[in-house]
């Protein structure tokens, strides 16, 4: 799980062009949206693409993303439980 969290942070930094950020700068329980990393709605769409591309998880209900993209820990839990690759 720890490896998955680090892998997720690296993917998010690369996919969302979070220049000048290192995986260590993102806390596992830090909010990804709002006051945390400050991601926006386009970033949320990119995260949905990332889930499908890297883990074979296709979100069919957009409302689901609100519960999943809360933090790195929450994303990692969801991926562990639903990944197909």
């Amino acid at each position, binding site marked *: 799980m720890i490896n998955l969290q680090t892998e997720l942070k690296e993917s998010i930094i690369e996919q969302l062009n979070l220049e000048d950020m290192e995986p260590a700068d993102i806390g596992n329980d830090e909010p990804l949206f709002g006051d945390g990393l400050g991601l926006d709605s*386009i970033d949320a769409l990119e995260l949905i693409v990332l889930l499908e591309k890297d883990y074979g998880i296709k979100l069919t209900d957009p409302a689901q993303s609100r519960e999943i993209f809360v933090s790195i820990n929450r994303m990692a839990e969801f991926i562990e439980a639903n990944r197909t690759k």
Partner: protein
Amino acid sequence: MQQDFYIKDWVKIKDGKISNSKSEIFNSSEKNLDFFLKSVYDFLELKYPKFHKMDGLSKLGILGTEILFRENSISTDTALILSNNASSLETDRQFQESTKTFASPALFVYTLPNIVLGEISIKFKLQSENAFFIAESFNAEFLKNYSESLLTSGKSSEVLCGWLNLQNGEYDVFLCLISSEINISFSEECLKNLYFAEND
């Protein structure tokens, strides 16, 4: 009585060189567009994380206006009238490529040339008229007439107008800040002279 307007300042970005009405301010031999844009960002010591998410056209627009607006304080009604001949083709192609696997939402939002106007307006808190025109080539007469109509109608106290083009990694940026402050005459001839000075 007819009011006269003037080119308060201008900036050009082309072939690794950046210059304004005073001097050349940056020169790089970097051929890769992304590396060049990042080196200018670092040179200007910009602290604007959203910059890294933008497409090339928007990055060029942000860098050009940053240089102009640092030297010249502007009001929130400063209009933006830009033009080019490649539209957003560079990003359109990148997006089309991404659709072969997973279409990128972050690329999709930049598949219109006028997005750069929104990015500039957000960065500099502008609440003003703006338009982006596609033309075959730099059209001084059109830019002069359109800008003057905004200024004389009182819709804007200043206008940023010019050419912002990006195609196949080659960029050609020429932005002018127009106001009523006496400086270089805002004429079709002066616009052409400035734009074509090193573009022939």
